[in-house]
């Protein structure tokens, strides 16, 4: 293993730090989506601090790996990761959703250094990722494309159009990372519009399917690295996660999909997360 690659323990600490950033950002902005940002924190940390080939000093490096946050409402997790990785100053996280900020309410590739694709209208990111994977083939670039998709998001038919097409072209460099937190805006995915059996669906579309615990850093890293190095066809990683993970009173509560914590809630959340960081 590369001596520069951070150890699992360091990645776990970074994920906890990013969770603190998420709470602070959304609290300060007074609006945002903490639940889905917290559920994706370990996945995004593994990608940005270990798995993806990047150069924060050169965000538009053509040979970089690409990441698309198709569930764009979770963008505080991405902004925190980018800032912690050195794409822009940490202090800028305080500007989330404010007038004139480079940190929009959903990811904007023209405004934020390090954002590879504008996203936020659900169901569209996997198509864009497929386009990137195909373009890499045309341009002779050896890059990997990671698309983070929500489990509720696969209710959008376009996701399955993209899944079908990726199999046609056998884009082994395309990874769909599903943040399976089982909740969506209006309630439980299973009740709003059931998407299961998810693994069987992706398999039926011709994808390699892996299932992991989306909060187990060892499992996340080992799976992502194995897929990166050995995939022969498009891969869907079903990451089972907890919405609001890390903040007890947010966990598995649909109401925390899209509301900001007040002062007292933010302080309680940060206390819990700091204990995790110190522990």
């Amino acid at each position: 293993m590369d001596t520069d690659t951070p150890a699992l323990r360091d990645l776990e600490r970074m994920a906890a730090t990013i969770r603190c950033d998420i709470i602070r950002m959304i609290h300060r902005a007074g609006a945002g989506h903490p639940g889905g940002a917290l559920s994706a924190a370990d996945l995004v940390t593994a990608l940005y601090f270990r798995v993806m080939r990047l150069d924060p000093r050169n965000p538009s490096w053509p040979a970089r790996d690409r990441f698309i946050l198709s569930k764009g409402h979770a963008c505080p997790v991405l902004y925190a990761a980018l800032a912690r990785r050195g794409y822009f100053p940490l202090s800028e996280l305080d500007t989330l959703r404010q007038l004139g900020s480079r940190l929009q309410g959903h990811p904007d590739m023209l405004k934020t250094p390090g954002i590879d694709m504008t996203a936020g209208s659900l169901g569209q990111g996997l198509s864009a990722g497929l386009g990137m994977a195909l373009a890499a083939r045309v341009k002779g670039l050896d890059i990997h494309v990671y698309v983070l998709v929500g489990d509720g998001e696969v209710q959008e038919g376009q996701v399955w159009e993209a899944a079908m097409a990726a199999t046609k072209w056998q884009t082994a460099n395309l990874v769909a990372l599903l943040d399976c937190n089982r909740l969506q805006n209006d309630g439980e995915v299973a009740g709003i519009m059931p998407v299961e059996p998810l693994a069987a669906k992706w398999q039926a579309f011709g994808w390699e399917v892996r299932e992991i615990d989306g909060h187990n850093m060892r499992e996340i890293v080992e799976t992502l690295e194995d897929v990166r190095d050995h995939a022969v066809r498009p891969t869907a990683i079903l990451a089972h996660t907890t919405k609001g993970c890390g903040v007890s009173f947010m966990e598995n509560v649909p109401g925390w999909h899209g509301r900001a914590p007040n002062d007292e809630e933010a302080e309680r959340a940060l206390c819990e997360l700091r204990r995790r960081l110190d522990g």
Partner: protein
Amino acid sequence: MADMPTYPTRYAYAEAVQELAAANPDVVLLNADVAKSMRTNEFAERFPDREFNFGIAEQNMMAAAAGMATVGLIPFVSTYAVFASMRACEQVRTMICYPRLNVKIAASHGGLTPGQDGVTHQGLEDMALMRSLAGMTVIQPADATSTRKAVWAAAAHPGPVYLRLTRDPVPVLYDDSLQFEIGRAITLRDGEDATIIAIGDMVALAVEAADMLEAEGLEVGVLDMHTLKPLDEAAVVRAARATGAIVTAENHTLFGGLGSAVAEVLGEQCPVPLSRVGLGNTFAESGPYRELLVKYRMSSVDIAAAVQTVVSRKDRVCSG
């Protein structure tokens, strides 16, 4: 006009994009199961590694084109106007226009040209929808020659372009000496009494109408306003000042297309009598293209009648 050679602009597009791809390795072509209809299947045979047929899935195709553009390709997305502008409207807006990506959308079957297919395949709202998107360039060339030039101009123009094409053959109006510039109207003839500002296949009909009116003693100018957005506002104002009356002609709904765009300019900068020829508040029906134009009052006779109307209204401009 009857003795002029005719050619569908969709075929001119398919030929031009092949020539372009031969010169530029970043040009790729995306199809959605109408490659045979648009003849873009020839591109697939010539450049098999740079053609992608997405099947009947325009939304995926449009967003994939966006992804390709982020990696430095110039995707030409080929489908019909109804699907490009409506089925995949939000993909065009959010994934292409918002990030200002270099995607070129070639939309065949514009207006009533797919006449017999009926309403489902007649793209009559597309220009209004595309015009409303920030940063979108919207073009409908009048003939095969200007279509070929428009393909090269679109490729050289950074950012999204919507290029509308006809299913049916339309008269070839220009020779290769044509200077085609995005956003600059082409003056086909100067006039004294009124100017017809037309777009796409209606340009040939505007010339026909001007010929008819000449026999009746009216000198009518014709402008080929191939670029709906950004509109050549200066050309509109010049025509209004020079002739004092304007008729617009478009194979499109009257709500939000060329007529609306010209009315906006005239209203703000140079109010003169205006009459708009296009499809009213109705859906059309199946039938041959030319017969539909007659039934829905969009023929050269209707354009000529509209000119007579605006000329008669010249002395009745609202004061102020």
